[in-house]
């Protein structure tokens, strides 16, 4: 498939010139095209923020919902129709700040969806406040003496909580980003892709140059990726910060939808179903205690 099939009629892209979001958007389109997944099969779900506008700038079904809440919406979509390819997209404030609790529990639930987090270590849409991943010392209009809270380490967090796929990439490395996104989509289960991305307007510390100098692409193999201890070491190391897939559980662990009783007898998505009225009526009749007079069988 040609990635252009994901292009949408000319829209007014609201990102700043030079923003890493453009690179991620193009890597995402290429990844989907190379996997031959048509826009009709894809649901792009996001919260609020500059990164969360990504779904608006490409073809596919979309839900742009509330700040921080993309993961539960995405889980609901996937659980109602497991045939869909579901991606939850947002920035570091959206996914790691406002949505932090959902992140933890989505990891535990392990639905088969891909979570792209554009991590530029600063708030863009609200104009330059610190984010959960801002480095200590970053001065902002709010953190006037510099950030003093420790930055959140999303990849270490995800690995420690048992995420089945954890990767980190850098937006300017579009080839790596594309390949990692492809692997994340193909992975059955929850896949976190943390994407380093410069914010050219508000983060003067973590620039293109800084990311280039402070990251290193890791060599990998399926055996290495299965090693959770190694993954944790990589996640805790840096600078230079390792890029690539850090951890992948390819043991075929069941995902959330696999475990749902709704799909035990039939894989048909919920929208194709109608209620079993006869079954409900039969159940209701068991609430009639009059039959006790005959001494019912239990």
């Amino acid at each position, binding site marked *: 498939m040609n990635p252009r099939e994901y292009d949408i009629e000319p*829209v007014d892209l609201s990102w700043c010139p030079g923003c890493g979001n453009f690179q991620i958007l193009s890597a995402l389109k290429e990844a989907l095209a190379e996997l031959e997944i048509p*826009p*009709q*099969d894809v*649901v792009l*779900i996001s919260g*609020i923020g500059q990164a969360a*506008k990504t779904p*608006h700038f490409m*073809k*596919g*079904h*979309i*839900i*742009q*919902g*509330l700040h921080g*809440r993309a993961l*539960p*919406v*995405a*889980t*609901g*979509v*996937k*659980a*109602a*129709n497991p*045939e*869909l390819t579901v991606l939850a997209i947002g920035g570091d404030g959206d996914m790691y700040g406002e949505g932090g*609790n*959902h992140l*933890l*529990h989505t990891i535990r639930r392990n639905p088969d969806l891909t979570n792209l987090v554009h991590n530029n270590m600063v708030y863009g849409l609200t104009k330059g406040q610190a984010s959960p991943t801002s480095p200590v010392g970053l001065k902002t209009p709010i953190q006037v003496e510099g950030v003093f809270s420790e930055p959140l380490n999303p990849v270490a967090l995800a690995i420690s909580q048992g995420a089945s796929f954890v990767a980190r990439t850098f937006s300017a490395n579009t080839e790596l980003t594309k390949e990692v996104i492809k692997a994340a989509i193909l992975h059955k289960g929850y896949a976190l892709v943390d994407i380093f991305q410069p914010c050219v307007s508000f983060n003067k510390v973590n620039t293109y140059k800084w990311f280039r100098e402070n990251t290193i692409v890791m060599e990998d193999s399926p055996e290495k990726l299965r090693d959770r201890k190694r993954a944790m070491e990589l996640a805790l190391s840096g600078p230079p910060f390792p890029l690539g897939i850090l951890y992948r559980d390819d043991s075929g662990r069941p995902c959330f939808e696999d475990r749902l*009783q*709704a799909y*035990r007898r039939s894989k048909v*998505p*919920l*929208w194709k*179903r*109608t*209620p*079993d*009225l*006869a*079954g*409900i*009526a039969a*159940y*209701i009749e068991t*609430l*009639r*205690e*009059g*039959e*006790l*007079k005959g*001494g019912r069988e*239990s």
Partner: protein
Amino acid sequence: MANELSIVLCGAAGQGVQTVEVLLVKALGSSGYHVFSTKESMSRVRGGNNSTEIRISEVHREAFVDRIDLLVPINGGIRKNIWKRLDRSTLVLGDREELKEEFEGREIRFIDVPFLGIAREAGGPVTANSVAAAVMCALFGIDFTILETLLKERFAKTPEILEKNLLSAEKGYERGGILLEKGEFGLKLPKPDPRWSPLLVDGHKAVSLGALAGGCNFVTAYPMSPGSGVLAFMAQNASRFEIVVEQVEDEISAVNMVLGAWSAGGRGMATTSGGGFALMEEGISLSGVTEIPLVIHLGQRPGPATGMATRTEQADLELALYAGHGEFPRVLLTPGNAAEAFELSRLAFDWADRFQVPVFILTDEYLLDSIFELESLEVEKADFSHHFVEAEPGYARYRVTENGVSPRGIFRHGNGLVRIDSHEHDEKGHIEEDFEVRERMQKKRMSKLRLLEEAALPPTVKGKPGARTRVFCWGSTGPIVAEALERLGNEEVCLVHLKQVYPLHNSIQSLVDEAHRIIVVEGNSTGQLARLIRLYTGRNAEHRLLNFRGHQFSVEEVSEGLRKILEGGEGK
């Protein structure tokens, strides 16, 4: 007047009072009595003192009464709210060994039945509850085989425990027979109707089954009393009905997950109480702008904040009415009994899908924890249809239509793309800051309110239509007010019970206009329904009868309150 009895069982949590209650309600219901039961419990896992009232009658009853004809305290530590309800006509069946001096020196008829002693000799002390249940079965003329069947069901998985309980039940049944022969019991029993064979349905089941009949196939919740009874029922029956049930990390997730499910063509419901509902408000607003259907079951309990976790109140009408920022149409359904809880929960799903709005089912702890008798629940008679469409290429999710409802596409049904947005958007779901688009879209969404008004359910009016004093109430207070009015027997007074409080049915205006006097009876401290009526009809209720102590009104309290108002114009 029909013969009837009010039986109250009370005892500590974790001591099996609930087992006795369930056994007894089922046994009575299967023996041709009309039954109704309701309970009140403290917020603790063990200890305290909880009570259950079981009414048996020759006619249908569905309301809490203060009167206690027969009190069976399983343990000591009887609370003030029970003592207040005892008088010379009350008979107490109790075990002096357990109750010690608690009833000494009180002018209350007391029959000592050694529940514990009998149990100790038969199946062991832990089976004292089965002794109590069996004594009562004997007194009420319930066939022993019925009790036997129920015990077999209750202890199906533990044959040894079953054996012990059966031994104790036999002895208890014998003792009950002796009491009956001696004539000490002396309570006039209602006459059972051998043809009466009701369904026994509590509020939790009524909401759940109604939702299922409405096509609900996706349920989320964070556990919170009293909303989690529905979660428990759905989880325990997820396999039977092939539905998705997930206990989520918080109520924010609960509402957002349900919205995701609806977008993909599922029919979802989140169940909660006031605190959880408050957390869902942003998600409710999301439903408003995105026009994703939504159903929330709000089981009310007293607030603010934690309030009283296991108690009841009707104080979240305005919370639900105004929940969520911005302006958007919604529906508030307020069932009064199990039949209405079933019917309205079914309807909630159809309306949410048809009108693409949030629909709230407001119940409360009292309704949910009460067991109602019903002749039947019509499931198969109800039509079922989905209201989504196949999305064609070029599909626009928010197409402006005459009635405001845009045909709702779902993902991957047809070749069109379904684009849903929380910002103000154009017809195709693109973010749009054009002021004209904003006005057009806001008008489109709000115009659905007219459809909702047309569909609104009329209130139930009981009594003479010409009666010029009208008593308004909503939700679970309805059957209590109905019985209170029956007692008053004043033909100048009629009942107006609202099973939908928003939008109001258009008949409310004339019901109000024709009334000489309006009395509003509701379970909150400020008169929320009275305020709503004033807002939409311009009429200020002359009297309000309010209760916000955490326990539902009794029939006596309402009839006495109404009598005073009618006689002397009292009221708040």
